[in-house]
């Protein structure tokens, strides 16, 4: 297990180098000058454009820029963005909020999705199964912004049980509704995935053996069935954490949450690579690490999987 982890961690290095280079390269290739739109209908003064370009090294060749970027990343010096605001503090402000939102969403997804899936899988064709199938179909067919606006309007504007937007500090209580919106789609996926897996495994030999041995139902389902059925669900949730960390641009926009999604959106539209590149690189890292964790969890869930 230890050696496997180390090997996987070492593998991260070339992957990170490759992806960050690609990100840098692609951002560099974007059409349009990031300083062309900054002065609106008026062209920016030459002196301003030159000063900005040299400040951010845009007048250097791509490889030199990439080298600078690597150096800055490794020394933890992210510099300032095009608005002359330190990038590190902006990330530091936004990331905790996004992490809170993402974890809350994954938790909602896991709890509601898995329980609904288990219940409907155990009583296939039963009443609950049908209800879950229909309600997940309903959730799957609703785009996030519909759910978001609907809940915001209903709970925030009509009934006034919540404030329509989240305050700057983004406490957990205020994040519940946005997290639910964010989770709604994948909750349905999780429920269906769990259900299929449960249905399949219920017919497997080891479950029959367990029942034949005279184990209690609770033990059969809780220990034998669930543990084996959760592997695909876990993979799904693992990658989900990664994608939610990138910020939910739409949900964050609707509820005005000052997280990574909004920061990234503003940076992309403003072609501010000083923010886009570090965020994208960190996201790559988040993905890689969460994948690694999921792989390691497999070993815990399924004794047949052993890493050497």
């Amino acid at each position, binding site marked *: 297990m230890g050696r496997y982890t180390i090997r996987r961690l070492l593998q991260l290095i070339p992957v990170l180098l490759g992806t960050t280079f690609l990100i840098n390269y692609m951002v560099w290739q974007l059409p349009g000058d990031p300083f062309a739109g900054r002065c609106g209908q008026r062209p920016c*003064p030459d002196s301003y454009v030159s000063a900005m370009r040299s400040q951010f090294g845009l007048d250097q060749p791509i490889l030199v820029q990439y080298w600078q970027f690597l150096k800055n990343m490794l020394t933890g010096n992210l510099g300032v963005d095009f608005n002359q605001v330190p990038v590190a503090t902006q990330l530091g402000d936004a990331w905790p909020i996004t992490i809170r939102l993402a974890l809350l969403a994954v938790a909602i997804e896991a709890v509601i999705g898995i329980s609904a899936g288990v219940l409907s899988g155990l009583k296939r064709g039963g009443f609950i199964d049908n209800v879950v199938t229909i309600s997940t179909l309903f959730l799957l067919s609703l785009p996030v912004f519909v759910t978001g606006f609907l809940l915001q309007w209903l709970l925030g504007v009509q009934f006034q049980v919540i404030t329509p937007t989240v305050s700057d500090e983004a406490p957990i*209580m205020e994040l519940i509704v946005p997290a639910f919106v964010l989770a709604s789609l994948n909750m349905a996926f999780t429920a269906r995935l769990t259900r299929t897996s449960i249905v399949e495994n219920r017919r497997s030999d080891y479950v029959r053996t367990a029942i034949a041995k005279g184990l209690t139902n609770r033990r059969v389902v809780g220990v034998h069935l669930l543990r084996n059925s959760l592997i695909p669900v876990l993979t799904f949730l693992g990658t989900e954490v990664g994608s939610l960390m990138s910020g939910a641009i739409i949900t964050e926009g609707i509820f005005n949450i000052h997280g990574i999604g909004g920061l990234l959106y503003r940076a992309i539209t403003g072609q501010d690579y000083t923010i886009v590149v570090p965020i994208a690189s960190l996201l790559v890292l988040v993905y890689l690490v969460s994948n690694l964790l999921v792989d390691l969890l497999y070993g815990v869930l399924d004794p047949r999987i052993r890493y050497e």
Partner: protein
Amino acid sequence: MRVTKGAKIAAGSALLALGVAACGGGSGSSSDGGNPRTATGTVYIRGCEPQTGFVPGNINETCGGTVNDFVYSKLVKYNPDTAAPELDQAASIDTTDNKVWTIKLKPGLKWSDGTPVTAKNYVDAWNYTAYSPNAQIGSSWFADVEGFDKVNKADPDGPDGPKQAPTPETDKLSGLEVVDDTTFKVTLNAPTAVFRTKLGYITFAPLPEAFFKDPKAFASNPVTNGPFKFVKWDHNSQIVVSANPDYAGAEKPKVKQIVYKMYKDDDAAYADLVSNNLDFTELIPPSALAGDKWKTDLGDRAIEGQQGVIQTVSFPLYDKEFGGNADFRKAISLAVDRKTITDKIFNKGRVPLDSWVSPIVEGYKAGSCGEWCTYDPTKAKDYLNKAKQEGYTPPKEFPIWYNGDSAHKEWVDAMANSINQALGADAGFTVVGRSMPTFDEFRSVITEHKIKGMFRTGWQMDYPHIEDFLNPLVKTGASSNDGLYSNKALDEKLHEADVATDQNQSVTLYQEAEAMLANDLPTIPLWSYGLQAGTSKWVTGVKVTPFGELDPLSISIKAAA
């Protein structure tokens, strides 16, 4: 099989998920009749993250412009109702020839750090902005002042070229002279009648001594001279300004504090406004404008008005294929049904324009575009034929370009349809809407003069005067003359108007110049922007300036809700 009780509860919550989540939210605004704003004296208004800090000479976008206008007073301010320039920090602005201006400050003006506002503060600030190595966005605003070419050197081959811009000979504009503590003299290169009006623009604000010690730190923690002073700036979330107790203006702030709350999404701000969590927004989202929903939502909290922003479409006159000739451009303009488009797409939130100047500014004359800006399909066809006889063949497909990152698609498509229908199937070409992904890319292609087709251009006034709609836009070689229009007679007329010593005569000359545009139609006027804003039920007296910003002195908290 038995189903456990716990699982039952969990499944129940899946089914009733919507309802369950509803219970978990935070508390809403209080509804006990009291006004929650009274206790703190704080109001919350919609904002957005400024691109640059609090250095007036380095600002030219609305997010920063709005909040900077709260904290900086200039020599002149614009009346929030009529847009007319009025003296603010200046006690007098005198000139006999529109070339040499003597500006006297009111006595007893103070910065928020207690130091007096002096003539030197103005001169130093203007010199700093104009000096090209300081790379300030607003530098070109001082091009009229004598000695500008000595302090501001252009890069000989542009920012793309390998050459560096030379260092200017001096960092002081020779046209600025401090007479005494409260008086300074400005000498311009040539008489400029509109100079007094210009002085209310943010770039002409002064800067205190503190700025020059550490410009970088100052930008995020400024010392200011306006009705409000800076308190704090949480990037991407809020800027807080509080009433300046030393503010010398006649009208004092009526609230203790304004929180400039940043929203990424207009819909979110609007939802907060409707539920009274936000006290002011000047951006009502399209979803609320549709069917005048916002008026039912807000009732007497809705504010309607006009602002000095116009929408036009320009032609690349440097391009043989897409530049067309005057009659072709007239045909296009005649074929645009402005009224239907503004009615249907903007719900009358924009007003059809028949001139090149916003209706709310000094010097506006109705009907300068006149017959060419009136929808007339028959005449449009006639002029198309005329254009063809004169030897212009439009390409099979004629695009109207726009930037896809804001809401332009609807009206561009409607305009294209209007033109296609009016000119008929036998026109020999079709007009189509085409988008570029971002505003940056769009502007890059335009400024490199590589655009193939008509393109959307808009103009937001810098100061309320007809001059601001002509000189920067249609003069040969002007900074925002995107279509490279050039007309000698027009240039001469504009120059005549610039240097006229009599204000009224100057305006008349500008109007004559504007009338000349009707011969060539280098750009097609479409409509001017209305203003839709809203307030919460906690505030009252709110006025919106012709620049589409909140007048910070007008907002006050209601005594009882």
